[in-house]
């Protein structure tokens, strides 16, 4: 693109005048731009900004069944001293550990599938398929599969002789959380694999050729070339993983509904249960003030974790950008 030559030397006054005189086409394009953005902007105000403002405001109020009354920080104290909320926060962080399995597994699969072989696209498609399914529907399927007596998993393990008595997978905290994590890994590994594959495709072949000349073996080339080259991708993938994992709700609500007791309650399901009632136990009835306060606190926790993650990984992506 060549810059048009100006025939005369323009003075400052000239330039100012030109800036003020917006051509009619441009002015019309402003108005049309605003009109085209109007409806999505309304959507933003009504369904993104308002809900946020509502939650923050109502977290300082308490609903007594008829109307809201100001409650100051009462609901925050209630939430922060609520043992169930402690469990929910702990569970959410435990749930994050699934990424320790999910991301390396996705990486391994991506590295294998970045090489050419017969049937590669079929394998990719099959591994990705779980990410297309509805986690709520699949939770129903897993609910049937995990049944202690009639479920396929126990029947299969007993037939293989791995276990003697059926395991009540959803009946204890450890196995229920483990099952949920396994299902989540099942669903998202394929998606992360695709993301990583997109990153792998961006690495120039020359890097590997240079590595070969230097006498690198396969492991070394993965460690010294592949991983540093896709570090910026991995950073985004892990961040999306962290945010997505902390938002987990559908899976828990359908599979365990936070049970047994409150043992698998997560931050998001805690908030949900306070708005809609869990339908069981002492917390069967909704408490909207607590729901709003819980939502604000949970939102802050997610934001803090995201910021800490971004801050601590900044170095690694800067490093790889230099390379």
């Amino acid at each position: 693109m060549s810059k048009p030559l100006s025939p005369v030397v323009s003075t400052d006054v000239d330039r100012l005048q030109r800036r003020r005189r917006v051509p009619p086409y441009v002015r019309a394009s402003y108005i049309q731009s605003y009109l085209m953005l109007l409806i999505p902007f309304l959507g933003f105000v009504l369904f993104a900004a308002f809900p946020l403002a509502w939650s923050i405001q109502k977290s300082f109020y308490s609903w007594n069944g008829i109307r809201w009354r100001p409650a100051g920080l009462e609901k925050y104290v209630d939430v922060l001293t609520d043992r169930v909320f402690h469990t929910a926060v702990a569970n959410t962080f435990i749930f994050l550990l699934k990424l320790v399995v999910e991301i390396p597994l996705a990486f391994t699969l991506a590295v294998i599938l970045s090489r050419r072989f017969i049937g590669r696209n079929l394998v990719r498609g099959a591994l990705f398929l779980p990410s297309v399914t509805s986690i709520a529907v699949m939770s129903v399927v897993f609910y049937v599969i995990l049944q202690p007596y009639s479920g396929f998993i126990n029947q299969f393990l007993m037939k293989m002789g791995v276990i003697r008595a059926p395991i009540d997978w959803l009946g204890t905290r450890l196995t229920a959380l483990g099952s949920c994590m396994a299902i989540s890994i099942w669903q998202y590994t394929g998606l992360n694999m695709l993301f990583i594959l997109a990153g792998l495709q961006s690495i120039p072949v020359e890097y590997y050729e240079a590595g070969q000349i230097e006498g690198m073996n396969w492991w070394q080339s993965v460690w010294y070339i592949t991983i540093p080259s896709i570090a910026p991708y991995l950073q985004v993938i892990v961040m999306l993983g962290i945010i997505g994992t902390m938002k987990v709700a559908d899976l828990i609500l359908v599979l365990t509904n936070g049970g047994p007791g409150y043992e698998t309650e997560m931050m998001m399901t805690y908030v949900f249960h306070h708005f809609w009632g869990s339908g069981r136990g002492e917390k069967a009835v909704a408490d909207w003030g607590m729901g709003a306060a819980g939502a604000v606190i949970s939102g802050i926790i997610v934001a803090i974790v995201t910021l800490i993650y971004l801050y601590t990984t900044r170095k690694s992506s800067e490093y790889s950008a230099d390379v």
Partner: protein
Amino acid sequence: MPINVWRIAKSLATAAFLAVMVTIALFPLVYAILASFKDNIELFVGSASILPEQFRPDNWVQAWTRARFARYTLNSVMYSTGTTLLSVLNAAMVGYVFARGRFPGRQIVVALFTSTMFISVGSLTLYPILEMARLLHIHRGLHGLIIINGIGVNVAGYYLVSRYINTIPRELDEAAVVDGCSFFQVWLRIIFPLSKPVLATVGLLAFIGAWNEYLMPFVFTLGNPNMSTLTVGVTSLKGDAMSITAYGLMLAGSAMSLIPLIVMFIIVNRYFVHGLTSGALKG
């Protein structure tokens, strides 16, 4: 030749690893479909085989005729289609304005819209969204949800579309302007028809998202089961007191929700994969 043996062993191990992974990935889907043809006694007793002793369509027939699943399927189709149409229009326009529009306040709008990726943290804002819908009287049913999803901010879609439009030469716009097109007409006559491929991807993502969505349709159709979508219908079976005897129904319902998606995925795999990777990562 020891090296060759080593190499063959390695590729066999890799193949075995992939085979195990593919089996795990596909197993629950295959199970849901095959086991939905078992009868309830077989499901209740349980077995280590995923093939039914005898293929019986009873669960499907019962789900379709007596358990409202015909209605749910229709609702799901209408809900997903409506959401898709509005989302595509929304993303097509905003993506264009973000890519080509130069107007005062542009940065602010882009920043505000992008921030929704962090504001709308799942179920945290679910209740106030319903409150707003109540104020607007669109809270009882799926039509309200179509509007909310359709006009709501869809950042990934905007980025996909605007990045695609950036690859269309600006000379086309300029030629159209010379011919007397306004900013809006340039979109309508030139850019919109040219961005069809990316709009297909956006539409596909919207359709699958709506088809699979659970929480929003659930709270919008609470106490109004005739409006439920398939996803909500299937999960509501689990909460019923009858759920012990409803495994067959649950599996048939799940299969009804899964099969159209799987078929669609096989047909349009390419668009979908492209959209997901570029929409989430570079956006």
